[in-house]
């Protein structure tokens, strides 16, 4: 239980950077990291209550963070999505 409580401030640091960040890339990397931290929190909750299906949610969060970050990176380079 205590590791979950310690990870919540980490998610709030990422949220602060996502709200504050001066450029688009700051917000993108902050949202990416927030997804990965949420994935870790979900894994810890799954361990706490022995619910194996919550790990599927963890993998899905990691995939969504990865695809979002890649799409934003392509937009920043100035290319379109089917390039």
């Amino acid at each position, binding site marked *: 239980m205590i590791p979950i409580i310690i990870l919540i401030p980490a998610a709030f640091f*990422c949220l602060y950077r996502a709200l504050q960040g001066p450029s688009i890339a700051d917000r993108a990397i902050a949202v990416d990291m927030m997804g990965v931290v949420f994935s870790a929190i979900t894994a810890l909750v799954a361990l706490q209550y022995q619910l194996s299906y919550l790990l599927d949610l963890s993998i899905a969060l990691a995939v969504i963070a990865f695809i979002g970050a890649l799409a934003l990176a*392509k937009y920043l380079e100035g290319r379109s999505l089917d390039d």
Partner: protein
Amino acid sequence: MISALALLSLWLGVIFVLLGALGLARFPDIYNRMQAATKCVTLGVCGIMLGVFLKTGFSALGIKALICALFILITVPVSSHALARGSLIAGVKLWKGTIKDKFTEDRGGKSIIEEEK
């Protein structure tokens, strides 16, 4: 023995994730932030997943945690590299304490280190 190893891995992962997120909030420019956040968070989340795997063994929970750790280990460096390259090409300024900008020099452009005010 295995249980103590699992606890050690889990706590190391939690501390790494917390310090990486602190670096993301506190460092001066995007490249420093990306350096702190992605490396620490990758190692930390992999440690947490390894701890979950060691705690539960070869059950459904453990195997899924191992798969998730492998996926994160592969994808987070890729996405952070793509974002760093994209932000350099888009012209996000480097911090004024930066010494070298080899990427822009090699591409034949003018260096984009922020001016000292």
